[in-house]
């Protein structure tokens, strides 16, 4: 990582949080592909969600217009990001909230830990939040002797299973109902040993297990789906009611939000509240959306904090092509349509942001060198672009980032040689003759010798034709 200069865009620091995997994508993917249960679970879940989402999107005659509006609003946000954040800060503060700024994961973790410690509580309840996973907040709190309880069902499954999330929306998508039952029986205190794998019974078990924790924990940590600059309103979109519990019951609420989540106006929510649930869970509207503006006397938390997080976002913003990755509203539609994600699952991507959006967001947040294999974790089929409710051109970004990823010396040498040969007709003719000779020698299917074998490891060499176009033209 290059040195960080004060006031200049910077990538997310190493050694904290979950933006970098332990191994390159191809190695992790190979292991995932060998797990038939994982592939069955993923295939079933992504097929289900694609059908649901497609049906409710088809109900809207103006889906494309909503996508265009959503994309335009996000582009406007990025163009005015510093000003909108200052406006948001003013509005939240005027409504009785407190705004904190965190340049990176280390700072954000320190701020939240100090805020929790000041309440005297050794436990927090959490609403599922990508930002707090990204910065490794649970680990930071644990180091300070504070227990984090994940209250989203899928997060709970991951936490009880001592597992890692594998999907933005449904972190336990890689688990089927039988596996979830086993995890609950093994790790959920006080669980009924007669628990079945009926999804309703599993949900009821989580309800019983968490109820007392909700009622007795004085601090909650959440993320935010949207923050409205003009009013200071924060919004959390959820399904189960665990979000409402966390946002309503505790005395202190701490929200950690990536800076790009701000939207300019209250009216803008009319666009995103239509796009997000239909693209995400495939519902017309998710069961619960909570909105709060600072503190409401006598109703809900009376100490309300907002932590605005950079952690590499400024570096993404600095790339004029790459910055559109910051449009993302974390719906996960791109994961659900991706042929690569459907086969490898989310763990192979290493970062908390998996799938196509992860392949373009993670390398930009960390610097491409730290996630160099991710821009290649795609077939460039373009399904993600079609599915994206805010029209992020993910294939364009993948190609852009491949260009910025470190390339082996041999590849540059081969490309330079090819360019030279194509510039010289006599050499080109000779090269084509050589290619046909290699055909006679039966090299097809065996790939190229090292160091070019890396290129043919996952590709078939095209078969050279028996006669080139130039020969055909000359003999015509």
């Amino acid at each position, binding site marked *: 990582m290059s040195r960080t200069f004060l006031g*200049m865009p910077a990538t997310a620091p190493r050694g904290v949080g979950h933006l970098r995997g332990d191994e390159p994508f191809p190695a992790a993917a190979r292991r995932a592909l060998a797990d038939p249960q994982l592939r069955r679970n993923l295939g079933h879940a992504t097929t289900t969600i694609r059908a649901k989402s497609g049906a409710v999107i088809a109900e809207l005659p103006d889906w494309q217009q909503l996508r265009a509006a959503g994309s335009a609003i996000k582009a406007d946000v990025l163009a005015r990001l510093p000003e909108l954040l200052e406006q948001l800060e003013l509005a939240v503060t005027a409504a009785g909230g407190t705004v904190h700024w965190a340049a990176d994961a280390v700072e954000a973790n320190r701020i939240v830990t100090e805020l929790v410690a000041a309440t005297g509580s050794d436990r927090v309840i959490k609403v599922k939040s990508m930002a707090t996973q990204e910065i490794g907040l649970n680990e930071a709190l644990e180091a300070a002797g504070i227990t984090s309880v994940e209250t989203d069902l899928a997060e709970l499954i991951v936490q009880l299973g001592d597992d890692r999330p594998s999907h933005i929306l449904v972190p336990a998508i890689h688990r089927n109902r039988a596996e979830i039952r086993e995890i609950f029986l093994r790790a959920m205190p006080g669980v009924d040993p007669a628990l079945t794998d009926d*999804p309703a019974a599993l949900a009821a078990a989580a309800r019983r297990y968490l109820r007392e924790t909700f009622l007795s924990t004085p601090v909650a940590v959440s993320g935010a789906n949207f923050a409205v600059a003009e009013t200071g309103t924060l919004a959390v979109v959820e399904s189960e009611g665990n979000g409402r519990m966390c946002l*309503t019951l505790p005395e202190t609420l701490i929200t950690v939000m990536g800076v790009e989540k701000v939207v300019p106006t209250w*009216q803008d929510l009319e666009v995103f*509240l*239509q796009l997000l649930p239909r693209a995400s869970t495939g519902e017309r509207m998710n069961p619960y959306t909570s909105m*709060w*503006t600072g503190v409401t006397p006598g109703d809900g938390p009376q100490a309300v904090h907002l932590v605005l997080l950079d952690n590499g976002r400024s570096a993404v913003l600095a790339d004029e092509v790459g910055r559109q990755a910051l449009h993302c509203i974390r719906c996960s539609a791109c994961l659900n349509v991706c042929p690569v994600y459907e086969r490898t699952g989310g763990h192979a991507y290493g970062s908390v942001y998996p799938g196509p959006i992860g392949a373009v967001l993670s390398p930009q947040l960390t610097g491409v060198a730290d996630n160099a294999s991710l821009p290649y974790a795609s077939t460039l089929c373009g399904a993600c672009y079609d599915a994206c409710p805010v029209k992020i051109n993910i294939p364009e970004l993948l190609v852009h980032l491949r260009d910025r990823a470190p390339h082996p010396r041999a590849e540059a040498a081969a490309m330079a040689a090819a360019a030279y040969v194509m510039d010289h007709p006599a050499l080109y003719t000779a090269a084509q003759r050589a290619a046909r000779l290699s055909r006679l020698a039966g090299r097809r299917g065996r790939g190229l010798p090292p160091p070019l074998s890396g290129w043919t490891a996952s590709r078939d060499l095209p078969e050279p034709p028996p006669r080139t176009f130039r020969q055909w033209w000359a003999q015509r």
Partner: protein
Amino acid sequence: MSQREEVLARLRAARGAAPAAPAAVPRDYRRAGAEADLDLLVHRLTDYRATVHRCTDDAVAEVVDAVLGGRRIVVPPGLPRRWLPATVTAVTDDALGTDQIAALDGVVTAAALAVAETGTIVLDGAPDQGRRVITLLPDVHVCVLRAEQVVAGLPDAVARLDPRRPLTWISGPSATSDIELNRVEGVHGPRNLHVVLLPPGTAR
């Protein structure tokens, strides 16, 4: 340099020259103003496992009796008392403790508005809806809606609502899609949602 100044300086450097004004957003999607379709609302609510009762104002108490008769419920301070049958024990929320609310069986409230296209009701903490906690902990929520409170789509709702109030948007009972991405009703919020829809022209 404070964290605030650091973040803002980074973002300014990354963004480049500031634009003169907010960009024009193409808003050629369906805007606010269409007429609300009550039957569509009923369909959407039912589709997401809410139970809908269409009746006149003087029959609300009968519906509450059918759903919650013999049970103990919490009600917001501004709820019209005529909606409560003699068969329920109603505790008014005057800063009740969470344990007290959690021990009750149900809650009856009014609403701020409802969105027909999505089957969503919105509560805004007005005196006839109460604090957010009272519609969260009891397992049965009966919500009374006047026809005039129903709007066509999301843009109508956003235009009518006041963002300075705490807002809760509710679309069916508590549910999850976390197990194999199938929707399962009933996790932490009320597992039973009943919507009572009053006909047009009903007085407040």
